[in-house]
């Protein structure tokens, strides 16, 4: 069975979502993963979208491109203002939040603002959007991204979205009293964080991936258990669901 990196990410992320929880999702992989989870093991997972919708149900083939468009609101039960939808996050209602990013560091800090120095950036990226808010307020944050060495760097050029900041007590000292980054899902591996250091560590490898491969594509030291397990590959059913959801492969690549 073949699958794209995006398909693999969506499947791996979906499996992390428990039933009866509330997930704050962006468009693309997070939304695909959430709908996949609903369709498989988590029928009572509630999706919340940044554009201002609670409990939407996606129509296969008509996935939204932004969280602010009509398609994203389909069959939602509540359409709060955008500020309100984030305030529910700040109040503590959401179990999961998703993040991607141009750069991620070992503490799970994410950069979507600048490559190079902010005063004279080599690349001005689009910016935080809701990412900084999601990472600050949701209970468990999942970072989902493709695994590249230029992306997994020891120090991000700019902290758009604070993960563990600089250590186990980093968030707390910054004033972030709630929530934390728990997992990093890539096309090569599943990673978590060492509670003692708050640094990223390997938990499992994607199917067919070797430990050296992951380390080769990671710009910082990545501790791993003695015997790294492999994640089970995407099931046929999971891939079929994803492909029905996004038949034009806008997000599946």
């Amino acid at each position, binding site marked *: 069975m073949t699958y794209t990196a995006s398909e693999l990410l969506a499947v791996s992320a979906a499996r992390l979502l428990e039933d009866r929880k509330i997930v704050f999702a962006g*468009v*693309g992989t997070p939304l695909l993963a959430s709908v996949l989870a609903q369709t498989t093991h988590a029928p009572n997972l509630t999706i919340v979208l*940044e*554009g*201002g*919708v609670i409990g939407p149900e996606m129509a296969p083939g*008509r996935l939204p*491109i*932004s969280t*602010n*468009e*009509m*398609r994203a*609101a*389909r069959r939602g039960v509540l*359409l*709060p*203002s*955008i*500020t309100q939808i*984030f*305030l529910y*996050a*700040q109040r503590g209602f959401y179990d999961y939040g998703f993040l991607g990013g141009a750069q991620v560091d070992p503490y799970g800090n994410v950069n979507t*603002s600048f490559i190079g120095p*902010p005063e*004279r*950036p*080599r*690349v*001005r*990226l*689009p*910016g*935080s*959007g*809701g*990412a*900084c*808010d999601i990472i*600050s*307020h949701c209970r468990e944050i999942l970072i989902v991204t493709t695994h590249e060495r230029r992306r997994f760097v020891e120090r991000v050029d*700019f*902290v*758009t*979205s*604070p993960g563990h*900041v600089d250590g186990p007590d*980093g*968030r707390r*000292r*910054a*004033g*972030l*009293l*709630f929530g934390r980054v728990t997992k990093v899902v890539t096309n090569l591996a599943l990673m978590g964080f060492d509670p003692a250091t708050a640094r990223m560590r390997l938990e499992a490898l994607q199917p067919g991936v070797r430990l050296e491969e992951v380390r080769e594509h990671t710009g910082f030291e990545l501790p791993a258990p003695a015997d790294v397990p492999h994640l089970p590959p995407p099931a046929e059913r999971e891939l079929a669901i994803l492909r029905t959801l996004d038949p034009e492969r*806008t*997000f599946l690549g």
Partner: protein
Amino acid sequence: MSDASFVEARRRLEAKDRSRRDKRMPVERAAELVRDGDHIAIGGCLYSRTPWVTLRELLRQRRRDLTLSRNLLCYEGELFMVAGAARGIVTSWAGIGLPWGLSRIVREFVESGRVRFDEWSHLALGLRYRAAAMGVPFLPTLSMLGSDLLARAGARTMTCPFTGERLCLVPALFPDVALLHVHRADPFGNAQIDGYPHMDADLAVAAAAVIVSAEEIVDPEDLRRHADRTIIPFFAVDAVVEAPYGAYPHECYGLYEADLAHIDAYARGVASGGADAARRHLDDYVYGPETFEAYLERFGVGRLLERRRAAQELSR
């Protein structure tokens, strides 16, 4: 910063004519409320309920040195940069949409220093508008703590006197003019929005002046029947512009879906042709068509109706 100070913002509101009066006018006149150098807050979000009818007119009237703020800035930002109308943007995100990747034009203008990009988190920017709408100089939040946005954006921190913990304070943002596109308004400016409210209700109350364009101007009696649906009060509004399809090619919830093919064509054009492609777009859709009707003609009746059908299908 063209942002008005807290005290000045209140004084401006007190001084303006807040009376209940007929505020209907053509967009050409409404746009005159915007002066060169103003801070303009744009309602809707990304490609949803963008007040294109008014934005287009500002470009036509060759307004200069504007600062544009919007929670997520779509390619209206690019057009203002290319037209030389914007000197700064205040936003949490500037692009077109996920599938189109980085904005070549935003990169060009911001990296070269020609346009200033003030970045806030999405909630932080929402709270800046809300602080202004609430008539307070700031609001507290946990957002942006621990990030590099905090210092760069001009937020402050304090030790909370109740919890003893660190908090981020975001300053109120009082735009000079807010541009809002709504589903229906009465001649006084009382307005209703269907579907996503986005941040429009806060913008309306935060800004010193407000231009409301509406798909439909209705009798105040029609609003009274569902007064609990009205979210913009007349006393905040200075101009009411009748503009069916006023957000096109962006969407207006329940009425028409975004013209994604058009957006895609624009994005591809700019991706390959850069600012020149955006300039051609300005000629074709902004400077060329003399009226908003003429502008809509560029898309054609068939396309407008097809997008309306798509919206109806979705809201069923």
